[in-house]
């Protein structure tokens, strides 16, 4: 009993030191929507990229795959084909590896939250606040990585029962909108995607 009391006292003593500080938003759980969790997600997307220097937006479409362990395959089909693979080890643009800090790597926890229901993890990487939305929900994510500040201003997620849209606001005024459609959740990864992840993994340092 004495030992238990001592332990309790020790925990109490340590509490203020180990408890989450101001860097966590305690009520965040309440603003996070409850979404279905899936290990694998496939779908189509349309992407609109607007930059202040460009007279018209860059519109493209294609399909994507999200795997909770491997990462994201972002395959543009129109108007010009290209493939970006985002894995825990970095970015692979058409087979070329780019390591180091890059704003796009933060899309991995975002996709995990949206498609695998891992909402709590978002807070490891972003300050999450609930935005205004007529129907459904909106979340504003501000990156906690201050080294990204000049490159990535914020990410805005919105949806209803399903995630619908991701808006990425660059540091220099660029804005990329991703809209999802035809989302499905296969049980296993198709051969082509698996190979794409494996190739990316092999190129990794």
């Amino acid at each position, binding site marked *: 009993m004495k030992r238990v009391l001592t332990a309790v006292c020790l925990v109490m003593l340590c509490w203020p*030191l*180990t408890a*989450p*500080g101001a*860097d*966590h938003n305690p009520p965040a759980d309440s603003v996070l929507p409850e979404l279905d969790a899936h290990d694998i997600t496939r779908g189509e997307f349309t*992407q609109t*990229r607007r930059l202040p*220097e*460009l*007279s*018209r937006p*860059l519109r*493209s479409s294609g399909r994507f795959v999200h795997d909770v*362990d491997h990462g994201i395959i*972002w395959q*543009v089909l129109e*108007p*010009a*084909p*290209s*493939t*970006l693979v985002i*894995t*825990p*080890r*970095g970015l692979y*643009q*058409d087979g070329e590896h*780019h*390591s*180091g*800090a*890059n*704003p*796009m*790597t933060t*899309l991995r926890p975002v996709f995990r939250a949206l498609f695998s229901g891992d909402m709590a*993890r978002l*807070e*490891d*990487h972003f300050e999450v606040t609930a935005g205004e939305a007529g129907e459904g929900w909106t979340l504003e994510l501000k990156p*906690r*990585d*201050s*080294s*990204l*500040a*000049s*490159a*990535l201003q914020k990410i805005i997620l919105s949806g209803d029962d399903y995630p619908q849209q991701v808006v*990425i606001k*660059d*540091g*220099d005024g*660029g804005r*990329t909108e*991703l809209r999802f459609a035809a989302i499905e959740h296969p049980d296993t990864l198709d051969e082509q995607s698996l190979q794409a992840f494996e190739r990316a993994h*092999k190129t990794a*340092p």
Partner: protein
Amino acid sequence: MLTKLRPSLWPGLMALVGLILIVQFGRGAGLQTDLHALLPDGPGDPGVVAARQQLTEPFARTTLWLTGADSPGKAARAARRLAEKLHDSGLFNDIHTDIDSAPVREAWRELLQWQRVLLSPADHRALRDDPERFIRHRLAEQYGLTGSAGVVTLAEDPLGLFQRYLSPMMEGPGAAVIDGMMIIDAGDRRGEEYYFAMLHASVADDAFAVSTNPPLLALWQQAIEWAEAQDVALHVTGAPVFTAYGSASASREITLIGGISLLAIISLLLWRFRSPRPLLLTLTVIGAGLAGGLATSLLVFGQLHLITLVFGATVIGVSVDYAFHYLCDSLRPGWTPQQGLHHVLPGLRLALITSVLAFLSLAIAPFPALRQVAVFTASGLIFSWLTVIWLLPLLTLPASAPAPRLRLPVRRLRWAWICLALLAACLPGLFMLEARDDIHLLYAAPDRLVSDDRLIGELLQRTEGSYFLLVSATDEETLLQRQEALLPGLEALVNEGRLQGYRAPAEVIPSQQRQAENATLTSELVTSGRLREYMTQLGLGETHARAHETVMSAPPQWLTPDAALRHVDPRYRQLWLGCEEQTCRALVTVRGMAPAAESALQTLAGEHPGVQWVNYVGDISQGMREHRRLSLVMLSLALIVATAVLAFLLGPRQALRVISVPVLAILVSLAVVGYSGALFSVFNLMALLLIVGVGIDYALFYHCADREGRRSAALAVTMAAATTVLAFGLLAFSQTPVISAFGITLVPGLVAAWLLALLARPPEHPGTGANAG
């Protein structure tokens, strides 16, 4: 001359020693503890030495502390608490927890003024070979998921050429800065979400101050316990921690080994002579040896390594041989000092000559510390020997009790049979010897530190500091061109998966020639209209497009290496050694080398002029291998020389008998090492040299004694062997692999030398009986 009793000789000698020590310590001579001083003199190439120094120096004072947890916030909080602890310890003068990327980005932005001539090596190739295709890819990328890295805008760099030129400088572990802490995502290595927060802490003074004052180790231990209590992982590395650990364990060992050895000697003497006088005399002999060895070494080298003292402690074991030989002789009935000296001098003289020769042969090793050991022990022995000759006869009193008999049950065996039986028993062991020539065996590092270091190296994608390509040329331009010629070969190795990466200054500092080619390529983009077409397709505004065309076709400004070095990432700056005496040098480092890659890199270096592949650790290991072989030859040579000397003095039959003692003792040592699978390297051979010296001592003392003196000689040999085995036996428990191997090799050899010395007695004359053995 030596045998005359002159009271003034010894005090005079020791006064000289004292004077040398006072002068040396007065001018600041000291003990060296840095284990790096144990490395051989190196390949001798000034370029290699400078390169190695440039690669390792920035890390000599830095320690890295990583706290790991399943969320970045938890890892960062732990790191912040740890930073406070490190700060409170007062050991560090600089602790930083984040990277301020703003100045780095600013420096990169300034390079933009040269953008027309700066292309990444890959883009240079692509634009030269197929510009259409290159532009198509860049356009496709703009339609994909791509963000700016925040250094330049799309209007400044529409094709992303400058961004792609910068990208090798941005390569890295991708550390985020969360809550003011550097955070590394290690999830992919663990198969689950995992993050490390990282602290850099530089020790306040050089490694020497930290290691002689070991609170760093205590702090490390405390931090480990603290991290366990907090349920966070902790990984630490850095040269100061390794040095502190190595020095602390060496200091502990010398205290223990020296202390217990002394205790053993003291107990033996008190037990045998039942008087404190011989004890004090023996301690004087040891003390004179240590002081004389120290003075001579300081005179020769200016400073002494701690390891020298650890091995030098063995002098204690050997120098008592002389004292015991003289003191045991005093147990003979009717003994007088002058007569005693006359009895033991022939044996002592031969023993000193052979031992000093054996110890001095250590000096052929390319390891500075071993040279110090050679000089320290050889000179120490001479001083001890002189003390026995000059001082002991003046102070030794005749004993009251006779020397006891030693009975050996095997004494009637024929010598030849013993030799044959031992040979047969040892031979299989010799074939089981497995040599390991690895410099890392010199370091006593706990597994935890070694595995932490490996993990941190992988996380930070650290390039290797001990192997690299050294590129030399007579001027900077040629130096850059030579590196550029290397790059395609290195790229091929990366694509084959034989290398994970490389880093060469020429990646970010193009040669003048390459800059001119780049300028042509970028002008062609403008004149061919390809750039304009791309910018139109992208929808870049007319003002921006025209401005960019102007930039890319303006008369080029050339980027000089000096200007480039001011702007590029420090990881590249570090690889530039600069020019000295008409030789300019730079390094190309590699990372993640597959086993077969080394020969490919060697071949690559061979194909390009001015390029040299350096494997620093490999060279040292190679050196150790060569010296292991050389030492074997030297050992045989020493034995042949000793046999020749002995044959001249004692006759061939007796010489063979005496020399067979150390030879068999060496075989026993090697066989035990072979059977037990203990470490076998050049350092074991150094131990064998010691066995040769001591084995000859034992055999000679016993052999040279007349019939009357054998009893006391046997006692002297036994006592010497007992104390020496105790002293060396403790070396076997050392945590430093080479010192431990030294002990494991010595003990069986010493025991064998002792037994064999007593068995190898010369043929008895009729009537002398077997009472001496």
